[in-house]
């Protein structure tokens, strides 16, 4: 896990505007970006494509319910 990620309460959202032909292309692009950042548990929260591209919010879960949360400082 990248340094600092364990301080995130649960998820890291990335919001942006992607120039893309359609919604599928925008989602593919944002997934590639987030995977490249080392995020694994990825979802697209919101995506709306109009005209030149898509307004998109993608999410990388760092912790889900039931995980051991890094920010608790367990073992430190």
């Amino acid at each position, binding site marked *: 896990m990248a340094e600092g990620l364990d301080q995130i309460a649960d998820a890291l959202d990335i919001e942006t505007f992607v120039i893309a032909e359609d919604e599928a292309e925008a989602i593919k692009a944002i997934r590639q970006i987030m995977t490249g950042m080392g995020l694994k548990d990825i979802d697209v929260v919101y995506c709306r494509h109009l005209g*030149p591209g898509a307004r998109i919010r993608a999410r990388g879960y760092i912790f889900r319910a039931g995980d051991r949360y890094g920010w608790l400082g367990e073992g430190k």
Partner: protein
Amino acid sequence: MGVAKKVLLAPMDPVHDIGLKMIRRGLEEAGHTTWLYPPGYSPQEIINGIIENQADTVLISRTLGYGVEEVLARFVDLLDAAGLRDRVKTAVGGMAIRPELAAELGFDGGFGPGTTVEEAVAFVEGRDYIPAGRAGGKQRYELVGDYSYEFKNTAIRSLLGRITAQILAWAGERTSPGIERAYLRRQMLACAKEGGNCASLKKDYARLCDGVIRGYYETGGLHPQTRKLEAGELSALRRYVEQTKAKMDPAALRHTRQKPGVFVQYGTGCPSLDVAHIKIAEAWGADGVVHFDPSWGARAEGFMEGYLTHQEDGSVITPENLSIIREALQDSTLWQVRAHRGLNTPETVLLAAHTGADLTKINIAYGSLGAGTDPERMTVDGVQAIRFAAEYGLPFDVVTNEELSGVPAHKAFAGMLIVADLAISLGARPILQPLFCNSPEVMINGYMADNYVDFNAAKILALRNIVSAPVWPGAPIGFLTQTEERVQSSMSTGLHAALAASLGVEAISIASSDEAYSGGPIAAASRTDTLQAVKEAFRFFGQATILPTPTASKWAQALEAGIEQVLYSVAEMGDFVQAVHNGLLGGREEGAYPGRVGRGTVRRV
């Protein structure tokens, strides 16, 4: 409708089924037979229902995200096992659904959040979905409206008449390098159109420019923060515009009201990025866009030429930059080029008109007090700019941004009405632009301690009591109420837009959700945030109105009385320029300083 379908609708969800209920109603109205199952049925029970009823279509919904893939995959497996896959058309929709997920799982259709009943009915009937009201394309918003420009307040009308006569007589005996350049520019444009040799005209033009601008014409040198766009960049931009235009289907922002039109400002510094932002704003429903030039452009004598990109806020005005932006606009988009504040005001109006702009922006008082231009120069140039606006049929707004410096609204409005009356007398069409803002005056006096409604409403009520003219609050609405937090910023913009709609104004200029962020350029995503917020605000209120408290009427009366008093003082002084210097339209103690740029450049003719 073709053949009536037999449609089974099943919420594969413990509780949620409202979407399917709405779709069922739509399907039955269209003549189809339906069965709607209650929430909580298992995949096997739904399969059994398809068989029993001999349904030819099944619509599944799923709102909860937990385990969605597993549940739906099991349903598709059972469908296959029952031998129904080839004869039953399947679709899944709901908050947890994305079209690509539906396709991966083998559904024929997938409908995410925001799907309409009509869209679902079209799927069942096997036809393409065309959104209602969008098939004919977006229409241009009619901004100026049917206003008489009659002054209802006769005392104010009389005072303005005296002030206008004085300004016109004074300005009629004077000219400036800005005016001379504008006339040369007109000749240069005509010369270029005829394919003539324009070198001598350019030489004359250069003589009237500042050092850096003159250097462009003499040696080809550029302003330090600018560079020329290369041929490859320009051809890529033109290709991008062509491709993007082909897939544009702008959203509608207004719900049931006809007004207001919604404008956004652009001015990223680069024509290419401007075009990108404009196309996004258009797609998300903006009715118009406003060209925002760099602040140094207002303080420099003259314009450069060519396709120039700029590394700071504001996009450089050149004939070519304006042309390439104009080319990129949808036919339905209104385009405003601001000319209100600096040494190139008349030429900007001229260029705007020649490039095909729909609107411009002129205010002598603001230009003199809030933008740093010498009042004498601004008055001479402003009058000529208004003459050009009248000649070319270019309506313009009279912005009152001096309020942001601390000038009280009644003084800013007095200045606005002086310019508006000048415009009316010269045959132009002014649009009043009061600010919807939490200005220094408001903060000091606590006018918005309780709400943001009353003082803004008072401004509109006061103006309506004075004159029949279009009103376009700006610029942007909600100025100094927005923070860097995008939800707060967007919501504030949306609520101010709702107030504007409730007050029945003609148009509004809105910020992006980056309005309060000053660390860098506005990002494209923040453009969509506020447009979406405005759309939601219009949807929320519909025809309902926002009711100001009785305080708004009291403040409107006070504003009107204050305006009349200011105009009386200006008229009595008999010298508009001196009145500006003396602080009658905003003084030093209020944060307004008569500008110095262009001082001593006005000469008698």
